[in-house]
């Protein structure tokens, strides 16, 4: 909320510095996001009286002797056409700062410092300034818009700082207003708070006016949608003369960034800023049917707003119509057909309350925003709606631009604009705060906030002003009290009356953290990716149309298509992360992520989807292989005290022969494998990449498995190394399975060598294993282990034709 200090001072006597006021506002809940002096860039510019002014031959320049009072008299060269002896102009002394302008003398190009200069051989000790050079527009100071020197009044004291004369010593507060205080979305609203915090009297804006006998015979207002329009008031103004607003009004509008247009339009804008109530003025002569009707638009109904744009409406929008046609898009913008023109002679003022969510939705749906719609979206109160109409009529009189008619129609849903009574318990207020605020402090604070408090025992009886729609309970009162009393009165306590609770992570959270730390220990870095991804990601994975991953939940209003689907796999984000790293020159690394996937039961959603945690690991680089990833899988199994088994599988984005399904306790829990070459090429990967994905929701059922101690074997273990020759297609897993079946004493089998080459047949390979035999009830004799080995070899030979390597 842009608030000029000078405007605030109309309602409150402010006798502290702008910085002190900023601190006061901050402590009572109004953060001043920016505070600056209007003339912050202007310095050392004083009133200069031109004593002599002589033309420099063959130029447009004049050389002047300028009296700058206490600062001295200086020779200044000037190119402006209105420089003249005897005139008073702003004189920038050497060392002054003013705005630099382009050759057009209008466009500001930054701030410059005035130095001594020489023009056509004449020394110049300063500069006489235009309005633009001082940042003063025509609206801020009459005459300042002239493309030449700004003429100062004759009574301006020579040598005095020009800033107070031009209003450049004013301050602007940009104040953040929280959503619960729409009543402070106006300068008068802020003034109410300032008066309360400074304990000063609040001076009310003048709302008096005199009605003439002029009437609109038979005029009617009908509100067909009271849910969208709880209050609509209209008032008739005759004998309108459209013209310019007075300087004081134009200046105030300029300070808050609004261009003056004409007196009637300026009044509506002025009231929007002063009281926070959007108003609209219709040219009455363009209204037909002697009526106003507020209704939902018909589907397909069209209106051309005063910016000349034709809009097609739906019944979600609200229109203001005369007896025949729409004349305004309610709360957003007036219609072109009824706008105020230079020739307007009679006006119908509108001051209404429209439902904020309707205005918000209309404004967004049609892409049409205005100061009015922005204000309505925050919510207006009927107190302001009523006051604003009176104030507008007062200004019509004050500006002398029309006569206030007698026709006033107020359609409302019965809401009072009078204060309502609220009684709360003082004890509850104090209990909420945890301190005891002295009764007299509470009474003083609530008095300053205009609640007219009374205390009766524990009861605090308040008269809640109609604009304080947020005040409903003792908690609201507690907030009012403490923000004015000061949060520094709050005394730290540590829940003296609370019961002891046991905190900490649950089993799932502990297990996930343990898993993350284990992955860090194998050199992987944790990453976090967005929960949404792109339709292109599904294509990157080459998933078939009927793949379960393609059944995704779509955002209705995504930021972009790339972030439009809820993830059903973490693999795509991981592949993208690897590609991003490689593009930036990181050619090897290990990454992992634990994140949710979102599997809908049906679309569109009618119940919570299955939101389940997954683990994704991505490793890449020359050193990585299927087996390094398998090592990571085994690390995960060890960490969670589980046993994984693996079987061949294939999917659309991994290598057909280097991909494994991961099984645990008979359930499929995930997969890992080498990224397929076509996918890798499309992502411009320069080193091989491997992806693992695991469903932690399934795995979580086994979290927290307690280690069970097994007594150490009573008898020594025996170990044999077996080098076996077999056909190339037989797998290590197959050999291990046969061995285990053949002998119940085997407790460990580990492969230590694979050989293919000259020493064995060309179609064969050799695999060498260390096999550990653990005795159970009695020690092995050397012969018994040899017997086991024989049996194993026999079985291997029978099943796969395996021979012992000679």
């Amino acid at each position, binding site marked *: 909320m842009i608030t000029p200090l000078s405007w605030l001072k109309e309602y409150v006597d402010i006798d502290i510095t702008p910085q002190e006021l900023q601190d006061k506002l901050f402590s009572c809940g109004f953060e001043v996001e920016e505070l600056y002096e209007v003339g912050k860039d202007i310095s050392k510019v004083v009133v200069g009286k031109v004593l002599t002014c002589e033309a420099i031959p063959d130029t447009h320049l004049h050389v002047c002797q300028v009296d700058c009072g206490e600062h001295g008299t200086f020779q200044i060269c000037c190119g402006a056409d209105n420089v003249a002896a005897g005139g008073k102009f702003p004189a920038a002394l050497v060392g002054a700062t003013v705005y630099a302008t382009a050759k057009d003398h209008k466009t500001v190009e930054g701030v410059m410092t005035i130095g001594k200069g020489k023009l056509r051989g004449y020394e110049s000790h300063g500069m006489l300034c235009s309005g633009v050079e001082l940042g003063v527009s025509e609206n801020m100071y009459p005459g300042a818009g002239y493309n030449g020197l700004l003429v100062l009044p004759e009574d301006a004291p020579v040598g005095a700082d020009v800033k107070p004369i031009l209003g450049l010593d004013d301050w602007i507060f940009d104040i953040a207003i929280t959503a619960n205080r729409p009543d402070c979305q106006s300068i008068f609203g802020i003034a109410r708070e300032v008066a309360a915090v400074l304990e000063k009297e609040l001076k009310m804006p003048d709302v008096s006016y005199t009605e003439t006998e002029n009437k609109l015979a038979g005029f009617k207002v009908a509100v067909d949608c009271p849910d969208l329009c709880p209050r609509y008031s209209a008032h008739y103004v005759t004998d309108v003369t459209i013209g310019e607003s007075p300087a004081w009004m134009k200046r105030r509008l300029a300070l808050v960034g609004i261009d003056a247009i004409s007196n009637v339009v300026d009044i509506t804008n002025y009231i929007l800023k002063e009281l926070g109530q959007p108003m609209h003025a219709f040219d009455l002569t363009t209204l037909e049917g002697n009526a106003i009707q507020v209704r939902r638009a018909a589907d397909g109904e069209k209106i051309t707003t005063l910016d000349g744009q034709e809009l097609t409406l739906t019944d979600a929008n609200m229109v203001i119509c005369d007896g025949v046609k729409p004349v305004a898009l309610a709360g957003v913008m007036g219609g072109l057909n009824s706008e105020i023109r230079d020739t307007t002679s009679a006006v119908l003022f509108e001051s209404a309350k429209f439902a904020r969510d309707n205005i918000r939705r209309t404004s967004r749906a049609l892409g049409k925003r205005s100061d009015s719609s922005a204000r309505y979206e925050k919510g207006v109160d009927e107190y302001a709606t009523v006051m604003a109409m009176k104030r507008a009529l007062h200004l019509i009189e004050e500006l002398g631009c029309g006569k206030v008619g007698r026709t006033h129609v107020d359609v409302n849903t019965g809401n009072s604009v009078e204060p309502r009574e609220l009684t709360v318990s003082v004890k509850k207020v104090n209990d909420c705060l945890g301190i005891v605020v002295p009764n007299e402090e509470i009474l003083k604070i609530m008095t300053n906030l205009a609640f007219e408090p009374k205390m009766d025992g524990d009861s605090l009886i308040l008269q809640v002003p109609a604009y304080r729609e947020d005040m409903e309970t003792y908690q609201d009162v507690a907030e009012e009290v403490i923000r004015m009393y000061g949060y520094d009165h709050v005394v730290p306590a540590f829940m003296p009356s609370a019961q002891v609770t046991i905190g900490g992570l649950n089993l799932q959270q502990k297990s996930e953290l343990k898993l993350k730390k284990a992955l860090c220990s194998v050199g992987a870095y944790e990453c976090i990716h967005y929960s949404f991804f792109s339709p292109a990601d599904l294509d990157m994975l080459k998933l078939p149309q009927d793949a379960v991953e393609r059944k995704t939940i779509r955002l209705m*209003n995504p*930021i972009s298509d790339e972030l439009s689907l809820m993830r059903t796999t973490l693999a795509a984000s991981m592949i993208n992360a690897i590609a991003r790293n490689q593009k930036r020159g990181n050619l090897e690394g290990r990454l992992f992520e634990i994140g949710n996937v979102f599997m809908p039961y049906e679309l569109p959603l009618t119940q919570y989807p299955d939101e389940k945690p997954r683990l994704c690991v991505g490793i890449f680089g020359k050193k990585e292989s299927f087996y390094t990833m398998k090592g990571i899988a085994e690390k995960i199994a060890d960490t969670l005290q589980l046993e994984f088994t693996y079987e061949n599988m294939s999917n659309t984005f991994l290598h057909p022969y280097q991909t494994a399904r991961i099984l645990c306790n008979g359930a499929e829990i995930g997969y890992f494998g080498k990224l397929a070459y076509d996918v890798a090429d499309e992502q411009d990967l320069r080193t091989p990449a491997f992806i693992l994905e695991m469903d932690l929701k399934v795995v979580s059922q086994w979290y927290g498995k307690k280690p069970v101690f097994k007594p150490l074997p009573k008898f020594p273990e025996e170990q044999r190394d077996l080098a076996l020759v077999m056909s190339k297609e037989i797998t290590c897993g197959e050999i291990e399975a046969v061995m285990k079946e053949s002998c119940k004493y085997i407790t460990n089998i580990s492969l230590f060598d694979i050989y293919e080459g000259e020493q064995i047949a060309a179609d064969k390979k050799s695999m060498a294993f260390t096999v550990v035999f653990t005795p159970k009830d009695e020690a092995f004799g050397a012969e018994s282990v040899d017997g086991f080995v024989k049996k194993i070899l026999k079985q291997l030979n029978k099943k796969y034709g395996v021979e012992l390597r000679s």
Partner: protein
Amino acid sequence: MNANLEQIKQEIIAGAEELNSSKEVYEFKKKYLDGKAGKIGLLMKEMKNIPPEQRADYGKGVNALKEWALTYLGEMDVKMKAKELQNRYESEKIDISLPAVESEEGNLHPITLIRNQLIDVFAGMGFEIFEGTEIETDYYNFTALNTPQDHPARDMQDTFYLSPEFLLRTQTSAGQIHVMESKKPPIKILSPGKVFRSDDDATHSPMFTQMEGLVVDKGITLCDLQGMLDVFVKKIYGEGTKTRLRPSYFPFTEPSVEVDCSCFECGGSGCKLCKGTGWIEILGAGVVNNKVLENCGVDPNEYSGFAFGIGIERTAMLKYGINNIKLLFESDLRVLKQLND
């Protein structure tokens, strides 16, 4: 002394000169001293050819030679082994300036690091950790939190909708409601999790992480909130850190406050990090609005509570000096490797 013995002694001395390794020493020693088969052992067999009166001297001479040879070759063996060890070391001389062979340790994401630090602090104060779902209903995210359909506070957050009813939660506060519906006070929970708002620039990401805390019990007041915050900031930002409450607004708390802590960079004197104010905004908090308690079936006449919400990314960015929130989600190893805390 038998000339033969002297000859053998000289033979050993000469032969030993030629020896180059401990293995050769061993072989050489074996040649002379391998029990009865060695050359010195064989000398004993000569005894029968020695005249009886000389036999005693002869025997002494052979034994002396044997002692001498054992000592002599033993010393030689020690010397040779020392030399060999030295040679072996020298042959294994390396360039210690070559790069290390690293066994790389990864690390947790900065968001997880901050999250864990916060959890440690609050778990110690008796908070349980509750993680809600990322997909929520309009009711749990807004309505139950005292933010009805037309409430202006809904403008504060641009919400991603999945259907008219379902949305991506905009705040972890949604989890509060689920907990209060399923659990009777005393409640002390911490809800960390991903939240979503339609916002995308250097300090805003459409997905970010919040941690919401909620306490509901008998007699909980604003003073308890202040007390808990004091403990929290001291543990996270250092012992000397102070807090400041100032009025704010959230629909689900009343009174609501913004909490600032004294700048941990400059200690409050004003610097670039705190923009010269000496204070840094760290979280929003307040006394739980009675309407929220009522919505969850908790009697506000019996219980009261406070809640607070911390932005994890903001905390991480402040703590590690990260200037762009995007860096946290790009998984660039050059970034991740630096943040090992």
